[in-house]
């Protein structure tokens, strides 16, 4: 239990640092801005209290906003994502609900489950984020394309990070 707690704190700092120090400065074109730090919220324990998840999501969003000079945008997106998480978890729950030992990672739930669970939440997060960034519907399709392409990039990075962490565990 304690180690899980420490792991989550470690993930919080690690992925936010990767986000603001490396990914922010990657130049992948105007449509691709991945937000890998959401992996912290995605990987919080399945049975964690949803209120706590929401508060942690708000906090991590605010920290990223601080580094992006986008006061409140990531926070709003993360809170929305945390609000939807219980329903998404419920929607993708296996027959007979989750095992007590289940974790939201590839090792425990399989790649397809992680891709659909993470993919859904990432799209919801990016929808809020990029439409708040544009703050207008006049560039609707440009913004939507940004959501889709950046979402795909984020999901790819999430899966890669999980595989990487899994390999380290097995070694």
């Amino acid at each position, binding site marked *: 239990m304690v180690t899980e707690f420490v792991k989550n704190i470690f993930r919080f700092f690690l992925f936010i640092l990767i986000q*603001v*120090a490396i990914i922010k400065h990657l*130049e992948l*074109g*105007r449509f691709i801005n991945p937000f890998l730090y959401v992996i912290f919220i995605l990987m919080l324990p399945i049975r964690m209290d949803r209120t706590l998840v*929401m508060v942690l999501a*708000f906090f991590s969003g605010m920290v990223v906003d601080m*580094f992006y*000079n986008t006061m*409140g945008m990531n926070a709003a997106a993360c809170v929305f994502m945390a609000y939807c998480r219980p329903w998404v978890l419920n929607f993708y729950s296996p027959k007979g609900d989750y095992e007590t030992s289940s974790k939201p990672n590839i090792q425990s739930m399989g790649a397809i489950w992680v891709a659909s669970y993470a993919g859904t939440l990432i799209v919801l997060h990016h929808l809020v984020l990029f439409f708040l960034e544009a703050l207008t519907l006049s560039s609707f399709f440009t913004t939507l394309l940004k959501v889709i392409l950046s979402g795909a990039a984020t999901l790819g990075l999430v899966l890669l990070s999980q595989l990487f962490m899994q390999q380290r565990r097995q070694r």
Partner: protein
Amino acid sequence: MYGIIAFFRKNYFVLLFAALEFLSLSFVFKDNYYHEAGYFNTSNSIAGSIYTTESNISSYFSLKTQNNQLVEENAQLHNLIAGTGDTTKHPKVLQKNPYGQQFNFMTAEVIDNTTNLLNNHITLNVGKTQGVVSGMGVMAPSGIVGIVVNVSDHYSVVMSLLHKNFQLSAMLKKGGAFGTISWKGGDYQMALLSQIPMSEKVKVGDTVVTSGYSNIFPKDVMVGVVEEFKPIPDQYFFSIKVRLATNFKKLRYVYVVSDLGKQEKTDLEDKTTKEEGH
């Protein structure tokens, strides 16, 4: 009373969601319209020191390019002093008004910069201690860069020209027609010059410079050159695409511009309002 408590207990999750969203969105809108001085941005000491470290490391890899740029700028300044250079190709560092030097230029180093977002910001390693205040202009040797929006003791955050809310008065060097320069996202090398009346003559390759009306930049600082223009149907204005002179991906050393006359003017205004108050 019990009804209210029961309601809160039953709906606390939705209520918390609403409260946190309201808080976040109020930050978003407040930031979008007022740009109030706050510390929850890259000008604070945590973000500032992380980006200083990062830029210290990355600066080693671009030393040669930076040296070349500085040498080039030096040469341009020598030309300017000798009076042989074309003054539109570089900033007017030595611009004077009848009362002496009007603009002061302070060097600063870019420690953080993006070009691939819709709202790009630049963080500089100078702040209040060095005399930077919100509203000052920032320019590179090659042209304008942005406007300071947030200042802490040792750092400042600049709204890049590459920000959807950026607007600055600019003019065509030839003909002197005034317009507004802005950026709508996308290509980091292209900006939009609007409000140039269709009665004006515009040519591809024409130079666009600052107008000096805003008291942020001196007059005639390079913005870019006209790349493409077309009339807006049903309006009397051109929509002009401008290729920016500044390469935003290679920003390293910039100048923070302060208008000395502006300070004098605001001081005088403050004094006047104080005296009228008595």
